[in-house]
């Protein structure tokens, strides 16, 4: 089996602060492999069999290669950095278009296209959907478990309070719904072997994309204004021993807030 895993480098959101103007202060904030993407990669690493191949790819600036290096240390066999100044300012649509172009040209024989649920900086969760749409492949979201079968996969999806188990045809896109709170600590052997693997960089021309298909020019989103909202909370403590009455009080409070 061949797995193409899309990943993203993000600022470590636990370190991000907001300044007095409501802007994110990213100076000095370390960049990390997105925990959602890392979780998805680890899930695939967990089901891989001998002879399987994992290809990690990301779109980002040159320093995003550090996230790919981590993927190589965590089990990916090859890595591609999709990087070009023309990609700057891409919204989810332009990002999905570049990722879809990469898959069509460099990973079209993948048995599965894998994503994390969303990125921890943008939090849109739209890239898996739009990439699948552009590739005209089936998509399976909120995947908790996945197991390969002879010619397909079986996945278990968790939709809040309901679960669904279904067959996933080869070539589909899946996005895993979780994140590992304990994270991953790579072994020293994996670090040594991952450090020896190469990362290939691809630009706009290699992906066959026009200037108006990528980056800010290829984006459909236009940000008109950004405001920071200040949430003021009034805390009140009530001690109620009856759960029913407590629920009523919460509903009343919610009603009053509307």
């Amino acid at each position, binding site marked *: 089996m061949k797995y193409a895993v899309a990943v993203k480098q993000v600022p*470590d959101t*636990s*370190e991000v602060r907001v300044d007095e103007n409501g802007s994110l*202060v990213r*100076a*000095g*904030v*370390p960049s*990390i492999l997105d925990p959602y993407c890392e979780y998805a990669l680890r899930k695939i690493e967990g089901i891989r069999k001998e002879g399987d191949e994992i290809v990690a790819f990301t779109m980002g600036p040159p320093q995003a290669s550090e996230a790919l290096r*981590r993927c190589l240390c965590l089990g990916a066999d090859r890595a591609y950095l999709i990087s070009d100044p023309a990609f700057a300012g891409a919204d989810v649509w332009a990002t999905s278009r570049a990722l879809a172009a990469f898959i069509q040209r460099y990973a079209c024989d993948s048995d599965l296209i894998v994503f994390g649920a969303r990125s921890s900086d943008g939090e849109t969760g739209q890239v898996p959907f739009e990439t699948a749409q552009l590739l005209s492949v089936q998509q399976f979201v909120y995947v908790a478990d996945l197991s390969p079968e002879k010619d397909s996969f079986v996945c278990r999806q968790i939709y809040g309070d309901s679960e669904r188990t279904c067959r996933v045809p080869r070539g589909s896109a899946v996005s895993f719904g979780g994140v590992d*709170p*304990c*994270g*991953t*600590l*790579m*072994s*020293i*052997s994996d*670090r*040594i072997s991952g*450090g020896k693997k190469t990362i290939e960089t691809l630009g706009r021309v290699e992906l066959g994309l026009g200037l108006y298909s990528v980056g800010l020019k290829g984006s459909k989103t236009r940000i008109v204004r950004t405001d920071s909202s200040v949430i003021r909370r009034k805390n009140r403590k009530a001690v109620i021993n009856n759960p029913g009455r407590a629920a009523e009080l919460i509903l009343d409070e919610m009603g009053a807030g509307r």
Partner: protein
Amino acid sequence: MFTREKIGRSEEYLTDESKMTGHASNVLLPMTEQELREILRVYNSKGTPVTVAAMRTGVCGGSVPQGGDVLSLERMTGVIGIGKDERGYFLRAMPCTTLKDIDSILARRDFSGLADITEGACEALRNEPETYFYPVDPTEMGGSIGGNIATNASGPRTYRYGPTRDWVRRIRVVMADSAFADITRGECRAEGRRMGFAAGRNYYSFDLPGYDFNGSVKNAAGPRISENMDLIDLFIGSEGIFGVISEADIYLAPRHPLISVVLFFPDDASALSAAKDIRSDGILDPEFLEFMDGKSLDLIRSLKKRDPLSIRVPALPEPAGSALFFDIRKSDADASFGRLAEIAGKHGASLDVSWCGHEPADIERMRELRHSIPKTIFEYVASLKGEMPKIHKLGSDMAVPDAAADEMMSFYREKLDSAGLEYCMFGHIGNNHPHVEIILKSMEEFGKAKAIYEEFAAKSAELGGSPSAEHGIGKIKTQYMELLYGRKGVEELRKVKRILDPNGILCPGNMIGRSHEICRSCETGAGHLRSQGG
């Protein structure tokens, strides 16, 4: 005016991380040095004692009051500015600024609002190619810089960088009578064993104790007394008994990108012999070298079994029976990994299951792993307090010279095994300073463990080490001062205390016990306080 609040039933000002409890009437909360001086002026005139406290992260009861009031510096917080002298960059901070806050400001290079102590220092530091940091790492980053200086705190990175003392450039100290002294290293030294300095209108002149502080091992037992000593070293490590630190300058060092490593071994003996190889290795050259024995790893396993999210690390590899935690420089990674493979092979460790982390989040998780051991034991002891109020944590804090390290380790095991006590060992093996934590289950065991602990202390002193390598003396370990310096040495320190704090109001009970209960006729008149004018 200063703020004074009744303590009442609020116990948080009456204890610290030792879980020892004390008693006091009020908590005093100065916001400025002016208010701090006002408090000391009033309290000195009344002869009412104050116990200085900040973040109360100490483990020897130094900030636990034994009467009088608590002088909490918690409102005197914040970084004041950046400066540079011939040694390098330094940072000026209020006493209750936490190490975490200092680290965060330096990591982000966020110097907005900070003063240039020397011209253009903030801008110059911002433009340095490398990030700077305060390298003393006492494990507890929530502790205050003033508390760290008062106890001469140290920790894992003492292995490379030495204790707090080595990084203090200058302090401002408010004396018991409210006068203040501004003390910069190198500006005031003793003449032989005679020290003299001015503070406000007063001139203090006295004989220093006759003993020499043992600086050859990690040692937090009192100030560094020696001939021709620097005045600043009298206050560093003096646990607040001579004066209250109201401001401090600490030196900074360039931060090298590091890779943290946890190397798992089949048993403790393999890990300890690998530690010797790593320590003497010219290539690996770690900044710290920490040990976690098999029982510590079992403690972590049981903690994670109860609550998998209690420590944010993956499950420990099952065959692991012991571990070493250290770091290597990123720039030398290839050579270091090669050397590591050789050492691991020689001592039965496997690089396939051992961890490395080169991203800050990974490094922090490994640090959390190591820190979880004492934290779990602290919480366990605290949980026993309801049933056994007099119980407190009993963990060793002894460091010995290299030549005596094996003998001391054997002594620990022999004594504890023969007493049938459960224990775990972890900590600063690079400085021959493991913590041996006795896991107590009853008051009977507590009594037994206390007696054994005394034997550990005596043995470490006999081997040329220190029974208080990094935790300080506080109120729990005062007997070790006499063990190290003799009755005469402690009495000489008390004489200094009576010169600098004649009414004995500052931190009574710390380090030298109750100094003012000693008969004043014992004094030889070696020291005196002279008023300058007014």
